């Protein structure tokens, strides 16, 4: 077994006993481990502490694990994430893998298996990191994305569109990525808030609507009759365009 050295591992798990047991074992392995007991604090710690690996539960208070996963994947495609969940049904495994999880272990699990899988993920992350300076690389859409005469440049944070050349904020980029990855699929306001912002569902959804108004101004021929960012009454929004 290759030694991976001291790494930072974030445990997002709502059961305090399990979280503490995981922390204990990971620190006995020589890693720094931190615990987040709910969804929102998990996302906050991921942003502030920048861990090397995340152990993630699915059933969490606040924001559920799958939304956290999707939210992280918008910004960081490489960060190793291992889901540790009592949900063992194939349905959840497939969902997790589709949203970009690296490994899935169901509870109750074998401790050695868990530790070996964690080491393996850390080792592979260490290989991938060499010669590739930019961590937090781009999620699925690619560095440049074009639709209907608009071009979005995710690296320069700019867009060439009807409104001319505009610069985009980080939040706008995140939200655009989320829409592009889910092209043609309905995204509810709650999903947009949880994944795009990391807010819990209680936040008023005007925030989302304001961003959509801005996107329409940038990218639509006629913002009042949107072609790309269509709203679905009282549910959310769909982004789509012709090939």
């Amino acid at each position, binding site marked *: 077994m290759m030694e991976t050295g001291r790494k930072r591992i974030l445990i997002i798990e709502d*059961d305090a*006993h*399990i979280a503490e*047991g995981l922390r204990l074992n990971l620190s006995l392995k020589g890693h720094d481990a931190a615990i987040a007991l709910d969804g929102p604090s998990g996302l906050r710690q991921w942003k502030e502490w920048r861990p090397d690996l995340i152990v993630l539960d699915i059933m969490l208070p606040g924001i*559920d694990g799958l939304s956290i996963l999707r939210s992280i994947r918008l910004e960081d495609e490489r960060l190793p994430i291992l889901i540790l969940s*009592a949900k063992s049904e194939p349905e959840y495994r497939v969902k997790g893998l589709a949203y970009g999880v690296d490994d899935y272990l169901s509870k*109750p*699990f074998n*401790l050695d298996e868990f530790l070996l899988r964690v080491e393996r993920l850390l080792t592979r992350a260490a290989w991938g990191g060499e010669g590739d300076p930019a961590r937090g690389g781009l999620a699925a859409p690619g560095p440049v994305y074009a639709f209907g005469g608009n071009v979005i440049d995710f690296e320069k944070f700019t867009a060439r569109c009807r409104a001319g050349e505009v610069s985009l904020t980080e939040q706008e980029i995140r939200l655009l990525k989320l829409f592009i990855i889910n092209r043609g699929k309905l995204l509810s306001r709650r999903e947009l808030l949880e994944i795009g912002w990391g807010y819990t569902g209680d936040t008023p959804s005007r925030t989302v609507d304001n961003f959509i108004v801005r996107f329409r101004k940038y990218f639509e021929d006629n913002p009042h009759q949107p072609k790309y960012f269509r709203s679905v009454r009282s549910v959310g929004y769909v982004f789509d365009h012709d090939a």
Partner: protein
Amino acid sequence: MNRFKWFYHPVFIFVFSIVALAASLALYIYWYIEVSTGLRGVIEKYQLDPSQFLEVQTWVVILVLSILVAIILAGVFIIFIYNQKTLQLYRMQRNFINSFTHELKTPVTSLKLYLETFAKHELPREDRLRYVGFMIHDVERLLDNINRIMDLARIESGSYRKDFVETDLVGAVEQFRRSNADLFRNAEIRVHNPAGKPLRGSVIPSLLDMFLMNILTNAVKYNKSSVPAVDIRFVPRGNELQLRFEDNGIGIEKPELRNIFKKFYQVGSTDDMTAKGSGLGLYLAQQIAKIHRGKLDAESKGRGKGAVFTLTLPLLSPGAQAAEGSSGQRSQS
């Protein structure tokens, strides 16, 4: 395959059968009239005796047909309703099994994790003691869950019905509070009896304990106040007794109030993965109230404003108390 799914939907089948039934009734009547006019023509042509063929009046035939069709219709409707109920129960049960296995798996995972850790590492004594404490707590959680299922089985089997005991309810509640003081050590539970005298009722002590346990643990568990508190008030009303449990917990939202007593119902939804608990506690509590010929109601001013559960029980009249008080126990079944 998916395209034909609607075809198997119970609502579609139901509507389709009704349409088919109505159409067949119309056709029966139409054909009957056709045939009888034809027959009449034949009779007139050959000058036969009409009473031989046309004894029955047309409207009688139509009436009989309509009644039969109405009966079939009622049958289809009843089967449809039953089918819907079964489906709903099945869905709730599946939900329950999902969340209940989660409730079982979590303590088991924790236990296994610590046991494997102990097998792997030699930990300092104080750490070990702390983790053993966790494990004991996990075993208690498991036991709670198992007991809840056993309680449900017991209540539904109806095997307790002969265990009614006449007792002072204020004393019984006080007794419960004393013997479970360690369970509620972080909470404040106060008993108020403004009447100041014993209030006698006929109860099954083990079920009363189960009831109090469910109501009080809910009040303390769904509570974000720094000191969870429950006020238990005895309010005699004629020959009834109201037992009010007022907590300072997270409260219940209006639309949830109707549902919380349903079997397997959980506040929160499985979609956003916030549902926790077995969905049995309040169902059990309400069943216990019914077994005692009482009822259980819930009220709340909304989220964050606490909740009040009111148990109404029949009170033994003073006369009955004088007559039967000395025997202390009696059978009610």
